[in-house]
């Protein structure tokens, strides 16, 4: 039951990050947090925008530079980049994920690499004919 309640809230957080990123992307050059807040409208508190921007900074999705007494923010990643970052965290965090996520290939033993190269190379001439 807790999962169901937790789900929408967390997702809203992810969406908020996406919205902030999108707004930053529309700016010409670095933008201030105040500018982002104005751009988003929708009654977001200034501190909320700062929190989201700081979180994005930790994820490597934005960079910032000092301008005067505040920071100017520049986007690095887009929505997809952010999703990639989140997915990497999930994959790194789960030690036994095989039951859920059937991966395309599993890891190779040292001897496997040589064997595989021979097998794959054996199929190469076929490519030139068909592709």
């Amino acid at each position, binding site marked *: 039951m807790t999962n169901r309640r937790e789900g929408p809230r967390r997702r809203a957080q992810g969406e908020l990050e996406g919205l902030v990123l999108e707004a930053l992307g529309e700016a010409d050059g670095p933008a201030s947090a105040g500018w982002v807040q104005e751009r988003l409208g929708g009654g977001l508190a200034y501190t909320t925008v700062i929190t989201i921007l700081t979180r994005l900074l930790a994820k490597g999705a934005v960079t910032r530079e000092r301008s005067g007494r505040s920071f100017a923010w520049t986007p690095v990643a887009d929505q997809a980049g952010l999703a990639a970052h989140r997915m990497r965290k999930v994959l790194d965090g789960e030690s036994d994920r*095989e*039951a859920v996520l059937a991966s*395309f290939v599993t890891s190779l033993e040292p001897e496997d690499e040589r064997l*595989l190269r021979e097998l*794959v190379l054996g199929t190469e001439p076929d490519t030139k004919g068909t592709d």
Partner: protein
Amino acid sequence: MGMFVFLPLILPLTAWPVARLAEQHLHPRTATRLLTGLAAAMATCSSVSLGLLMVVGTAQLPGNPLPDGWSDPAVRAAVPYDGIAGRLAVPTLLAVVAACARTGWRHRRTRRRAHRALAGLPTTEAAVLPDDVPYAYALPGGTRNRIVVTTALLSHLEPAERRALFAHERAHLTARHHRFLLTVRLAAHANPFLYPLRTAVAYTTERWADEEAAAAVGSRRTVARAIGRAALVSHRTTPPPALAGLTGFAAPGPVPRRVAALLDPAPLARRWPSLFTAVGMAAWTATAGTAVSAMSSANSALNLALVLHAATPL
């Protein structure tokens, strides 16, 4: 019930030969279903036996919530070595339940987290993530199954190989392979003797998806090449496979075996192997083992129920 109650605990050993032979000699679809079915049946019987032993075991503990009549000598006499067996059964069954609950919970958590990570992306079947680590996953999600691929992996594959990759992942999702994988995982927790079946099913589901992909793309070589390239690229970028399971045997690992199988002709989709082949013998041995296992646990359960019924003052 006598010694019969112990049989289901060791009869999973009869499934070892077929776990070894099925992956080479049966169609991967048949092998997956057969091995998962055997694992589920044997794990259930083994857990029933543990439960019966536990009833007798706990009946001797002072302050248990069971009726007094259950610690009657007649009940105890139903299990040989009831003292040791009963006391061992209690922690064992608790450990089994805990391990299964943990696996089930983690399974759900991984799924939920992975879906949440993709929130905000367009809800297409394939989610292509810009990442320089090459990987591809099939993420089951009830109504919205998704295929997660990184740009790094796609950039190393030719168009036909990309189609093979997507066909492979789609096959995992449409055939619901995650359910087979979860079943054999839980079975291996219930009885560690079933562990070889878990390893075998992990391989046969991959082979099953490979065969489906080969049929969808129309070329076994393309699928073989896609797997080979993807494995070599992943290997180069992620040197220490810290998360890999215990696959340290002298035989080649699963990936080269899959590629080699694809370079061979397609397997025949025969429904049941003949008794007069090695794999047929192994399959029938395992089936007989399962049947004996089921009969033993049913027999023991019935016996104990009768004894307990007679011993319960009502």
